[in-house]
């Protein structure tokens, strides 16, 4: 039984991936594919734009990763190790990415930084008479800025535990050897955080390679293309599956190389392991006058990274339409018409409903399937079960957009194509690895004797699974359900190719609104999602007792 369930889940995962690889080597457009060809690869690699494309992709991903991880690490150090006033502003950091509604970080920053209509450029002109449009959301710098800020929480979360659980005697022995606090921080504290920093950096780089909204909403209008936006264009505009899959394979290769470096970075950290496991009291450094500098850093990050985007979003959702003058008149021109308009839109209502139902279903099904698969691998003596370990992790190497390219091709011409099943399956494959890795991490940590005691006392696998494994896993199941729900409910990059009229997905609907210029309505929709996310966080906090700080 558990084996059968794993086989079904494994099959669902591996099929779109194989399809992408096969399709990239076949001729023809939409549906009509026959014969084997490398023409798509020749076109991709023969393209004069391939080098700029590679260049843009790497520059964008690396720039964002550096900005985000660096800033996140610095904030983690400030919070954990200094007596900076007001650092509580940053301590809610883990909550911030959870509350960000779909595509809203891009919308907020485009409204702020757009060259002509952007709020900041207009302000510069009005108050300082600067005509030159200094800020440009549709530039590489604009993209790196927006996605870099989105990378901050991960850097913070990776490095905070390092600075908090730091063995203080490593620093104390430096003091005794004659090293002053600044020197000690630079030579001992920061170098010891390097492995965690590298891990976060590589992971953020990978997220940059796979990210969809920023390249499409900010890169494409500014004619800055990366692989993801090329895959999207060749699929959504040209309907050329061969070309889309060929670009996809290049993207997958880049992802796999990055994953390889991620594994290396984790191994590298083993050298840094010395005797640990004691409860340490971490010493907070009195950094004297510098605490005002770090306070400024914390405060500016809070404003720029958290407060301003949310405020802009909420204000824009409550003005009749977006332009600079209307924006500045707020709140005298406050209206709720955007909300009523959006709520009357059938595409939004269906999308909202579908996203709620599907994300709940996906959260439940991935978590259950993940536990069953992990149980099969680690707790039954099924021959060849280790294969599932590979299959379960495989989708991580595939950017979500590429997965949905594969699913589009699989379902093309079948009745499933224009249905929620395709969408549901896409989300399932995309989020399964997170559920699986969470479950296998927890199952490995449960002492095998607990299971064996049940086997010995006559339990069958389902008794062991339902009476022993599942109850013990309960705490981590709550976290995984919540995480996958809030990720799925704002997914754009899997859903964008799999929606169709009548089968909308809320975040994709907002994405379309924004692309056709209905900015205020998109913002109103975003605020509705914000309310849903707030409810979800409250439920998680009180029902599952999840904590949103470290």
């Amino acid at each position, binding site marked *: 039984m558990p084996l059968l369930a794993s086989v079904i889940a494994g099959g669902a995962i591996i099929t779109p991936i194989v399809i992408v690889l096969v399709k990239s080597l076949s001729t023809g457009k939409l549906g009509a594919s026959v014969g084997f060809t490398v023409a798509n690869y020749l076109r991709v690699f023969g393209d004069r734009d391939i080098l700029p494309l590679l260049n843009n992709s790497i520059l964008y991903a690396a720039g964002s990763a550096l900005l985000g991880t660096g800033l996140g690490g610095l904030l983690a150090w400030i919070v954990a190790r200094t007596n900076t006033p007001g650092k509580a502003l940053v301590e809610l950091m883990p909550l911030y990415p959870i509350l960000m509604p779909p595509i809203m970080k891009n919308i907020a920053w485009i409204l702020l930084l757009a060259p002509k209509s952007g709020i900041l450029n207009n302000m510069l002109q009005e108050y300082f008479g600067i005509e030159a449009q200094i800020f440009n959301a549709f530039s590489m710098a604009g993209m790196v800025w927006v996605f870099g800020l989105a990378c901050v929480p991960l850097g913070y979360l990776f490095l905070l535990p390092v600075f908090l659980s730091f063995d203080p*005697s490593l620093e104390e*022995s430096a*003091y*005794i*050897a004659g090293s002053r606090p600044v020197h000690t921080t630079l030579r001992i504290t920061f170098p*010891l955080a390097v492995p965690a920093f590298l891990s976060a950096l590589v992971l953020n780089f990978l997220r940059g390679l796979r990210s969809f909204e920023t390249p499409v909403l900010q890169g494409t209008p500014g004619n800055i293309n990366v692989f993801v936006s090329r895959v999207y264009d060749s699929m959504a505009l040209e309907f050329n599956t061969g070309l889309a899959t060929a670009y996809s394979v290049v993207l997958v290769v880049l992802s796999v190389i990055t994953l390889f470096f991620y594994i290396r970075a984790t191994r590298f950290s083993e050298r*840094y392991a*010395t005797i640990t496991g*004691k409860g340490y009291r971490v010493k907070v450094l009195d950094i004297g006058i510098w605490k005002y500098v770090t306070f400024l850093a914390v405060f500016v990050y809070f404003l720029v990274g958290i407060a301003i985007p949310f405020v802009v979003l909420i204000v824009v959702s409550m003005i009749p339409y977006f332009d600079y003058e209307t924006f500045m008149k707020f709140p005298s021109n406050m209206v709720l018409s955007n909300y009523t308009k959006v709520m009357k839109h059938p595409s939004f209502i269906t999308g909202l409903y579908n996203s709620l139902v599907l994300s709940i279903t996906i959260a439940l099904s991935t978590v259950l399937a993940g536990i069953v698969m992990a149980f099969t691998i680690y707790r039954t003596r099924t021959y060849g079960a280790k294969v599932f370990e590979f299959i379960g992790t495989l989708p991580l190497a595939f950017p979500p957009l590429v997965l949905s390219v594969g699913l589009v091709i699989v379902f093309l011409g079948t009745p499933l194509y224009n249905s929620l099943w395709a969408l549901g399956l896409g989300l399932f494959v995309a989020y399964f690895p997170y559920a699986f890795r969470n479950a296998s991490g927890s199952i490995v940590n449960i002492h095998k004797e607990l299971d064996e005691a049940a086997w010995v006392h006559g339990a069958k696998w389902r008794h062991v699974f339902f009476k022993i494994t599942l109850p013990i896993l309960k705490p981590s199941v709550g976290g995984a359900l919540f995480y996958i729900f809030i990720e799925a409910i704002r997914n754009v990059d899997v859903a964008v190719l799999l929606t169709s009229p009548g089968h909308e997905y809320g975040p994709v609907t907002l994405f379309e609104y924004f692309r056709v210029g209905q900015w205020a309505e998109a913002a109103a929709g975003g605020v509705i999602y914000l309310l849903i996310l707030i409810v979800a966080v409250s439920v998680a906090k009180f029902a599952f007792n999840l904590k949103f700080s470290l």
Partner: protein
Amino acid sequence: MAILKVQGLIKTFKDVQALDNVSFEFEKGILSFLGPSGCGKTTLLRSIAGLEVPDAGAISIADQVQTSVEDGILVPPYARKIGFVFQNYALWPHMTVYSNVAFGLKLRKLGKEEIKRKVLAALELVGLQGREERYPSQLSGGQQQRVALARSLALEPRLILLDEPLSNLDAKLREEMRVEIRKLIKKVGISALYVTHDQEEAFTISDAVIVMEAGKILQYAAPDDIYNHPAHSFVASFIGHAMLMDARIVTLQGSDCLVTVPEFNGATLVLPAPKQGAAGDACKIVIRTTEIRLSNEKFPEGTDNVLEGLMTSREHRGGLLDHRVQVGSKEIVVTSHKLCPLIRFNGDGGKTFLSIDKSAISIIVDP
């Protein structure tokens, strides 16, 4: 010139009194702070290093004030010219053995050649030559320990502080290392402070021992003195290998005194007189059981402190024999070497005589 002088040190953590008015002076050599966990010994060591700021009191090293709460003096740890070996060694995992040892030397702005010479000399001293390019995680626990020692010694500190340096090693290595650490420190010729909760370790390694409990110094003396003449009942019980019993002083006769011991059916024992105390005072006596003699026959007339008991069992323990003898309501375990004059053991309850030299008994009259 005393290498270390501590006056009136007080330190409170929340509601725990870690140091309760601690004062002492230390001339030179190796001094151990001995006591159970939580007695304040590590806090005392960390205060001397400047890693902990006391609430009151003063510390001087080599007659230079390092900490003085009253005068607002607090020399930072990096300017105290001391060495410190941490319990978990605290080797910097991102640096090689060489860089770990060279770290402090580089900060002193010494020439490259000189640094190299000193690092290699320190590593040779601890027997780790040829391991310079290893990382700490590639070394065994004992080797990491040696690197930590070398790192401290390379700086030629005025005083080296060791915080339970052997507690992470296995028993056999611990015994080897404590002899070696003493040899090493004596060879270098500096003074050392050594924190431990293991009395055997304290006695083998040091020239003097401070026994602490609940933030107070109970006794400060040479190891022999502490063993033979514990000044406090806590010290006696902590040192172990001794029997601690309630007694009452009967009379004082010159340098001797007579006590009665209720647990020995009120038997009277003679032992060296205490410094204070008078007839009728309650006291405690400490009998070192290793110095009790057993015999199947009566001891000659005039032998000190002869008791009569029943041997209930005898157990072999390696090369030793444990005799369990019931005297009054107390069971005494007398351990003897196998080669000692053999005592017959006729099964359960054989009559046995015991004699205890008066020098094997100490008396404690707790204030």
